[in-house]
């Protein structure tokens, strides 16, 4: 163990640049987040006050300010749950419950995430393949690309309920129908982004390879593919966020009992607002992690290749 690197005391690694970063980037973000939390609390008091007053009027008691604050922030089914109520629910369903339990939010998140990831993988792979075809085949380019671009302007998410129900009726259930929705939602951004990426090399770069007598596949592997990566990653970020939305919406129509979408739906049926907010925050965390992972990958890969310097 003597060879272990010397880990500096906390904060020792934060040099001038680090402190600058805290002041320039972290402090404003924290301020805005704190302001949002404060607004949230104020909103909770304001929105839940009506119910408290009604209860008090029914009971014939006087509502004092401390009582109002206490009650509005601790109702069972508030119109707007306070942040700490949501935090408590999150703690209860994420940490206190076993991961395999049907009441664990981690379990529900995993159901949704697995469909998201499967669909995203399928959609991305197909998207890249189609983009390669479009770039190399003029007829495909002219036939397919306009439709791929147009598809971005229409709400294809509206197809989701039908896909779920139709696949159900032919006996396909569970993961796959949701993954299909995630797949086609991530498919189109990847096609469009990848096509512009593969076309990113300018005429001079292409001409240079031509003077070497490079073959089409050499041009593809040595120039087009590397140049396309910044575009690919940009569309992957869009695609994975869309895939998650697709998986969540895919859980709505059949009244599924598992998954984040199901938690949203059952929460809205039974007026369990705290449950809705907890599911919503969990979905937000999932989205942040997914986009964050893609972003990290982008940073590492593009950094290695010398982009963005």
């Amino acid at each position, binding site marked *: 163990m003597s060879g272990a690197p010397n880990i500096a005391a906390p904060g020792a690694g934060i040099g001038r640049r680090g402190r600058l970063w805290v002041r320039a980037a972290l402090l404003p*973000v924290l301020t*805005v987040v704190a302001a949002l939390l404060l607004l949230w609390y104020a909103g909770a008091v304001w929105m839940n006050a009506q119910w408290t007053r009604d209860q008090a009027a029914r009971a014939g008691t006087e509502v004092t300010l401390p009582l109002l604050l206490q009650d509005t922030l601790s109702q069972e089914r508030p119109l707007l749950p306070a942040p700490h109520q949501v935090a408590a629910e999150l703690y209860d369903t994420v940490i206190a419950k076993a991961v395999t339990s049907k009441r664990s939010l981690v379990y529900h998140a995993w159901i949704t995430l697995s469909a998201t990831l499967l669909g995203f993988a399928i959609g991305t792979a197909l998207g890249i393949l189609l983009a390669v075809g479009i770039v190399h085949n003029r007829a495909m380019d*002219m036939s397919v690309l306009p*439709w791929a671009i147009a598809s971005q302007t229409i709400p294809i*998410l*509206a197809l989701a309920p039908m896909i779920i*129900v139709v696949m159900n009726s032919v006996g396909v259930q569970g993961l796959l129908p949701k993954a299909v929705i995630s797949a086609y939602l991530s498919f189109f951004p990847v096609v469009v982004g990848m096509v512009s990426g593969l076309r990113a090399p300018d005429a001079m770069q292409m001409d240079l390879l031509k003077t070497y007598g490079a073959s089409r596949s050499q041009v593809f592997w040595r120039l087009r593919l590397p140049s396309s990566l910044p575009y690919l990653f940009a569309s992957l970020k869009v695609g994975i966020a869309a895939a998650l939305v697709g998986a969540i919406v895919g859980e709505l129509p059949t009244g599924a009992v598992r998954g984040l979408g199901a938690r949203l*739906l059952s929460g*809205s049926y039974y007026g369990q*607002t705290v449950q809705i907010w907890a599911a919503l925050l969990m979905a937000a965390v999932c989205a942040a992690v997914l986009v964050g992972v893609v972003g990290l990958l982008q940073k590492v890969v593009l950094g290695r290749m010398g982009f963005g310097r």
Partner: protein
Amino acid sequence: MSGVFGLALVLAVWGGLWALNAWLAARGGRAVRLAVPAIFGLTLLLLWEMVVRLFGVPGVILPAPSAIAAAIGANLPLLWGDLVQTFFKGALTGYVLGCGAAVAVAVLIDRSPFLQRGLLPVGNFVAALPIVGTAPILVMWFGFDWQSKAAVVVVMVFFPVLVNTVAGLAASGAMQRDLMRTYGASYGQTLLKLRLPAAMPFVFNGLKIATTLALIGAIVAEFFGSPIRGMGFRISTEVGRLALDMVWAEIAVAAVAGSAFYGALALAERRVTFWHPSQRK
């Protein structure tokens, strides 16, 4: 035997029309650029119709395009009512309010670099979140009618437009801002004459992204509760009754509405940012 025959016929039609497209694509020209995608679209519709008829695909799995067209023709008033409810009342109201608020906030925080540095990462973060998930909450707050859908749309379009507008306001060059200083221009003059016009390409980028989001938000929010009209309501109930021709009809209307909305924005963009390199001919 008829299955093999059907398959052969489908493949033959596909191959033939593809060959036609490949031949056309090799010639080039303006008419070809319009004709090729149109032929491709018609090919898909034709193949769809043939597959459904030749293989007897049941309507509860995939209705033929002709059946969908018939459903559209027979239900025009109903579809129009749904469009008014979801698109004009829900999506459009929310779109105008949300985009307006976003541009206003972007201009308001323009003078505070601190607020911008704080709001931008938060805005970028929120823009990537599954915001349609707020639909059940907003339906609870604003009721079943279009107001709650407009609210969902407001939340969905706000951040993409905000982030784009802030980026746009920062887009004017240092030299151009120095020029305004040499004229002794006030903050308001610089904003009005330089920075807002220079921001327009960015603003329109945000506005175009927001058109699709608006329609999605309004439709999906109806899955969480709506009066007995609206495109999302119709889709979810007709799916439940396995009346898929009606679902496809509604989707076709949504597609037309979506592209028309986007097209209108793209047209406005052309008129406002005619000077931008991406718009010049």
